[in-house]
């Protein structure tokens, strides 16, 4: 393990050494485009004040600052703290960073107290601490399940990152992806040109014909369909089988003429969930705009945890008059299986298979049973990880970390450590992870820890297991 950070911190000065950590561990130092150089404290407080004024976060901060009793139960739930043993990785410790600033600067009680008793002022070093701390967190919300008071540390991380992003502190990888998603021709985080998309689809269709012997189509820009399909953009580059599996699924259940992909926006990703509500809002609007352009009735999201959650929770918020129901393709496949429209070969996948629950769809209890129904219907050697479902551990790439390549060592040695142990204990040959970010992180983990297993999507297996009539 390297002792030094993999890349230099791109602030104007190196971050202060905050404390000796029990484990000499890689840090989560990410690149920033044009990092703010001076007056960062004032910028932070100004951004904080604006966020408090125009959003509903004040109620949350009020509630949490009175409710947090400091029981430290969250520390046992956190995979990061388990890997480092560093006090600063305790979820409540991180939450206190923001709550302290809130109490000191934005409550009457705190202002009076600091006037009378003095008290600590926010300083530049604190901004560095906040900037790293909120990106060390994977925002997986596992700790909130263990909090007796129900404090949602994931929401605190979300707010912390939001305030930081409003003063220009955003990981370069996330920001560039967002800019590409907003400005490129196909509105994808990879800025894939439309001809490349069309070429790729032709290739997939040929491949599907070869594999199944059936003319399975990817409907493109078809207006008036029931579903408009958005996959994470990385699927169009790296996950051919996941996409083919989806088309095969739609074909097998007789929906081949009831869905479409839009060429003006086919990317389900929304990095706004990771760092900024304004971005979240605008990317959701883009998604709904494309659905409206093609007059689709429903939005279907491919295999991607944060994208599915964003569509489900935030299309009704930011979709305004263009909002429409959103569904995950996993939910859809499970419904079709239950309705008897999807026939699977119960012995199709002979390898030992395990399933990784992406936090964004499993933590709330939304998509847990559905993929398992599908897996049990096609893989006789299905084994569970311990723990799984709502209590599953994050892969270590959550909260956008998987997309930030410069923190690779942090993701491997720290954030992904618990997951790697979990994977190893299953002895599985295949890990099913229906999420673009989890897939990327898990593949890197498998390589890093030399685990003898392959990471696949759920649709990849469906493609092999569908029984054609």
């Amino acid at each position: 393990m390297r002792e030094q950070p993999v890349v230099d911190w791109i602030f104007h000065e190196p971050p202060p050494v905050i404390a000796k950590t029990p484990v000499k561990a890689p840090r989560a130092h990410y690149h920033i485009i044009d990092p703010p150089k001076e007056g960062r404290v004032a910028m932070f407080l100004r951004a904080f004040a604006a966020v408090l004024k125009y959003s509903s976060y004040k109620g949350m901060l009020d509630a949490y600052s009175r409710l947090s009793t400091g029981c430290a139960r969250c520390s046992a739930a956190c995979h990061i703290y388990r890997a480092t043993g560093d006090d600063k990785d305790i979820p409540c410790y991180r939450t206190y960073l923001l709550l302290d600033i809130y109490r000191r600067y934005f409550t009457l009680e705190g202002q009076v107290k600091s006037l009378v008793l003095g008290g600590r002022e926010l300083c530049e070093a604190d901004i560095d601490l906040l900037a790293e701390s909120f990106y060390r967190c994977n925002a997986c919300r596992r700790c909130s399940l263990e909090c007796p008071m129900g404090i949602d540390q994931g929401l605190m991380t979300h707010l912390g990152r939001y305030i930081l992003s409003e003063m220009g502190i955003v990981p370069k990888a996330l920001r560039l992806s967002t800019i590409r998603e907003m400005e490129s021709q196909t509105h994808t985080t990879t800025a894939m040109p439309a001809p490349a998309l069309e070429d790729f689809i032709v290739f997939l269709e040929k491949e599907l014909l070869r594999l199944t012997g059936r003319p399975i189509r990817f409907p493109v820009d078809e207006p008036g369909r029931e579903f408009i399909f958005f996959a994470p953009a990385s699927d169009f580059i790296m996950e051919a089988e996941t996409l083919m599996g989806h088309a095969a699924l739609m074909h097998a259940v007789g929906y081949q003429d009831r869905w479409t992909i839009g060429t003006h926006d086919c990317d389900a990703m929304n990095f706004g969930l990771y760092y900024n509500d304004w971005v979240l809002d605008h990317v959701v609007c883009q998604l709904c705009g494309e659905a409206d352009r093609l007059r689709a009735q429903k939005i279907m999201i491919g295999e991607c945890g944060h994208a599915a959650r964003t569509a489900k929770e935030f299309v009704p918020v930011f979709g305004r008059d263009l909002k429409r129901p959103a569904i995950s393709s996993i939910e859809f496949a499970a419904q079709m299986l239950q309705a008897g429209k999807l026939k699977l070969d119960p012995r199709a996948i002979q390898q030992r298979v395990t399933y990784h629950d992406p936090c964004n769809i499993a933590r709330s209890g939304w998509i847990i049973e559905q993929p398992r129904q599908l897996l049990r219907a096609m893989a006789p050697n299905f084994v569970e990880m311990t723990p799984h479902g709502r209590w599953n551990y994050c892969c270590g790439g959550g909260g956008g970390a998987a997309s930030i390549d410069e923190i690779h060592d942090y993701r491997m040695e720290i954030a992904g450590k618990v997951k790697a142990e979990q994977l190893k204990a299953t002895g599985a040959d295949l890990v099913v992870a229906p999420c673009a970010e989890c897939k990327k992180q898990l593949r890197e983990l498998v390589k890093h820890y030399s685990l003898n297993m392959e990471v696949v999507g759920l649709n990849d297996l469906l493609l092999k297991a569908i029984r054609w009539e």
Partner: protein
Amino acid sequence: MEQWLTFARGPLFIATFSLMVLGLLRLAFMQLWEMVKAWLRMEDHRLPWWKNIKELLAWSFPITQIPRVKPVIGVVSLFFHAALLATPLLLAEHVMLWRRTLGFGWPSLPRVLADGLTLIFMVAVLLLLGIRTFHRPSRAISRFWDYALLLVLLLPFVSGYLAMHPEFLIFRIKTMLLLHVLSAELVFVLIPFSKLSHAALFPFGRLSSDFYWRLPADGPDRVARALHGEEVKA
């Protein structure tokens, strides 16, 4: 001494108890008000009420939650809370006081059980103090008041126990009773101004988090405009 005790048990008790009740009502009202504001701002009003209520009930009687992580702390904490609630409410002498004031009372604990609970409470406080001091993650997030409140809570229990057991008396019984009443009143005063207010605010954590995840539709735009003017970019 007699006058002091009468004062502490009379007007001072009424004042501090009312302060506690009104203080907690104020906090609960403020929480509700924030929730109402969030409700009015939010676009999507479908909230997972049933899930949250189920979780709230599960955490109100956390027997099933405790074994998952840190079971020792969980068990100590459970005894701490149970004794903290049961002893003041169900002690025969306290019920008698209530009956005298309110005109009605409720069943009380047998003396032996009340004594046992008091001792359990004292042990639990000492264990919690030990956990805060020696358990690394707890110590890392503990502040002055986390320790101080535990000691303050111990005062009425110790003084009450001593007042009930003349064999241990170090002061005269009236002095002990005065100390007991005053320390309980100190707790009443601290409740609405410290983390002890979770006694009343407990339901708000689980019930309100989803309120704040439902962002107001115009919020992000207004934040961005306030900070960056009309020219907002990703």
